[in-house]
């Protein structure tokens, strides 16, 4: 079982996306179709050794599993009686999809990650942008040290981070809770209401540095001349950073936004780990947890359907973000 969009890992490093080489070929209207085709073939042959390894992996671990899941989602296993006499796999049409859209557990899980995303993604990206601008500014000292420091949490596997944070959150073990208690504040990090924020906090801690580095790399590419020109026009300091630098790294900002949205919808490690200290965290807390639960229940077809719906939703969201941003650049 594979989940379209990367499987049950939360927020892995970005896959390099290559533009298809055909797009770069500018076709002049005078060249005849034949030479044009010949040239394209030649280019393809030249590009093949570079593209094929990626393409092969992409097909084997991404397209085929996605296609397989899609196929599986249209079938269902039917048993009869006690179910001990074997089962048959029958074509189910859209039955599984109808079930998904009536499955309150799954819909709730989508609502939860959407809520966490709405709170956490803008906050994290804002912090990351401020940190990146500070790293990039001429006045920054110890840049290398801070770059590494910001990046360190990302290097820690999500499960380990989840475990460590669990200890900080666990009501009876947490030094933070104890400290607050002694100050007369009785707070719980694992109550139903607090859970989304506790999880968002881990995500922010783990991923801000990663996004900072992505933005910082883009900021480095902003030409020095532009900033000098801005300075001549009297635009310096924070004003220059926000009005001149930030618009120029829009593609990087967009990329971090899309990755963050994808990552949030694929949330798994952190809540799954926290379940040991928060029994009230339901086993279908996130869409991927809900999908894995279907796998454990030996309901592979339904799990496939859930994966397809999740994958499609992420796809639509990503495209929507790109579209919305493209429109804004055009106008």
């Amino acid at each position, binding site marked *: 079982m594979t989940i379209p969009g990367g499987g049950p890992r939360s927020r892995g490093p970005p896959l390099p996306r290559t533009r298809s080489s055909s797009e770069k070929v500018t076709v002049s209207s005078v060249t005849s179709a034949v030479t044009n085709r010949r040239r394209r073939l030649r280019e393809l042959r030249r590009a093949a050794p570079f593209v094929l390894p990626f393409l092969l992996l992409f097909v084997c671990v991404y*397209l*085929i599993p996605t296609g397989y899941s899609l196929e599986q989602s249209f079938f269902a296993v039917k048993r*009869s009686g006690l*179910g001990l006499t074997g089962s048959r796999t029958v074509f189910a049409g859209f039955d599984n999809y109808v079930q998904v859209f009536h499955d309150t557990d799954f819909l709730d899980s989508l609502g939860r990650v959407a809520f966490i995303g709405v709170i956490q993604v803008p906050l994290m990206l804002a912090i990351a942008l401020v940190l990146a601008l500070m790293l990039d500014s001429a006045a920054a000292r110890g840049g290398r040290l801070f770059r590494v420091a910001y990046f360190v949490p990302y290097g820690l596997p999500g499960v380990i981070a989840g475990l460590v944070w669990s200890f900080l959150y666990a009501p009876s073990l947490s030094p933070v809770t104890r400290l607050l208690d002694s100050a007369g504040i009785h707070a719980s990090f694992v109550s139903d209401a607090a859970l989304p924020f506790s999880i968002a906090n881990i995500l922010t801690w783990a991923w801000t540095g990663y996004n900072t580095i992505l933005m910082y790399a883009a900021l480095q590419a902003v030409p020095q001349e532009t900033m000098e020109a801005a300075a001549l026009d009297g635009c310096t300091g924070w004003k220059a950073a926000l009005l001149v630098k930030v618009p120029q790294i829009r593609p990087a900002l967009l990329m971090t936004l899309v990755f963050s949205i994808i990552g949030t919808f694929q949330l798994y490690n952190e809540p799954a780990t926290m379940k*040991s200290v928060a029994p*009230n965290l339901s086993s279908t807390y996130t869409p991927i947890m809900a999908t894995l639960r279907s*796998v*454990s*229940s*030996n309901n592979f077809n339904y799990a496939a359907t859930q994966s397809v719906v999740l994958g499609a939703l992420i796809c639509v969201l990503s495209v929507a973000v790109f579209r919305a941003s493209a429109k804004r650049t055009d106008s």
Partner: protein
Amino acid sequence: MIKRRARLTAAAILAATTIMLSGCSSSSSPTAESKGPADITFWGWAAGYDKSVALWNKTHPDIHVKYEAVTNGGAGGYDKMLTAAKAGNAPCLAQVGYETFSSFLAAGVLQDVSTYVEKDRAEFPNWVWNNVGVDGKAYGVPVDTAPMAMFYRTDLFTKAHIAVPKTWDEFAAAAAAVKAADPSSRIMNLPTDPYLYAGFAWQGGAPWFGVKGDSWSVSFDSPANRKVGDYWQGLFDKGLLTSYPAFDASLYSAWSKGTVWAEVGPVWSASLIRDNAAGSTGKWGVAPMPRWAGSDAVGNSGGSATAVMKDCAHPKEATEFAMWMSTNNDSVSNLIASAAILPASKSGLANSALDAPQAYYGGQRIYQLFRSESAKVNDGWVWGPIMSTSATSLGDGLGRIHTKKGTYQDALDGAQKSTVTALKSQGFSVS
């Protein structure tokens, strides 16, 4: 541009399908009837299984067993087995807990080996056989059982002059007495792990499932289950129980510090407490599980079998090994020493290793108690065919109790509803 991209996509999908049909699929070679020794693969996770397998291989050159350790069943091992069975590369034998056995049966991944175990029927009591098959059929060989008992702090009970409770009524009275003796202490932690809680339902004659002819009955919401659930809800509502998460460090620390005085749990709690509450060495004792009025029945929570998987090419030999592992004196001695199991077989229960005094429990011979209690386990318990769904749903409900947003009854009702829905949607008959 869009058209071209669509064409490219189509080509990619075509290529993908071709590769899928030829290259990517792993070729599983079905073991042909070979003349050499029969090869049997065995997946399990319990400590000591590897040693028992090595013992077997030393003495049985004709049947070679290859042991492969997998992740603990509940932590992913079962998923791996089910997925392997679907892919056609499952092992011959697999360690499967009783609670999951029916689910494996219903998934159609097991093989009927009734004829091969017939001669050894007398080795296991009826309630154990009921856990490895339905309708008197057997699909594997039982290894161990997990009858329940009461673990308690002898020092604290004695100091507070509280008698060891023999019935659940006495247990409730003792719970109040513990709180009165030390307001910061409680008698026990709220049982919220679904499989641990199953042991209480099991004892109370409150099965969750039953087989009626050719259909399953589901009874999480039965009056008997209500009675057991209400008992624990009552203790919790009176503030007589702690509410640490099950199997959490905070609970272990409370055991160690002496703020939780007892644990009614299965035989494997003995190692759980010993390994996690080192601070209270020598201070624990074990007494029989408190009884319901008018009954001497005990609950069981855990235990597992060696299941014979469907595609096993040598079921007879595989069953022979499994039976040997569960009954041979050397193998059982090894399993008791390595994994502290309570053997399910009668010959295994006779093993003298069970008579050894346990230092952590103040020198008490605790396994003698479990040996005699294992004969009193309630007979009528049946595990359901989609336990993973039932248990997670029940577990989600039980997990809400400490937040006071749900009760035992709510959790049981939720499990009833989700189980019946899931059974019907997968085509099982439900009566």
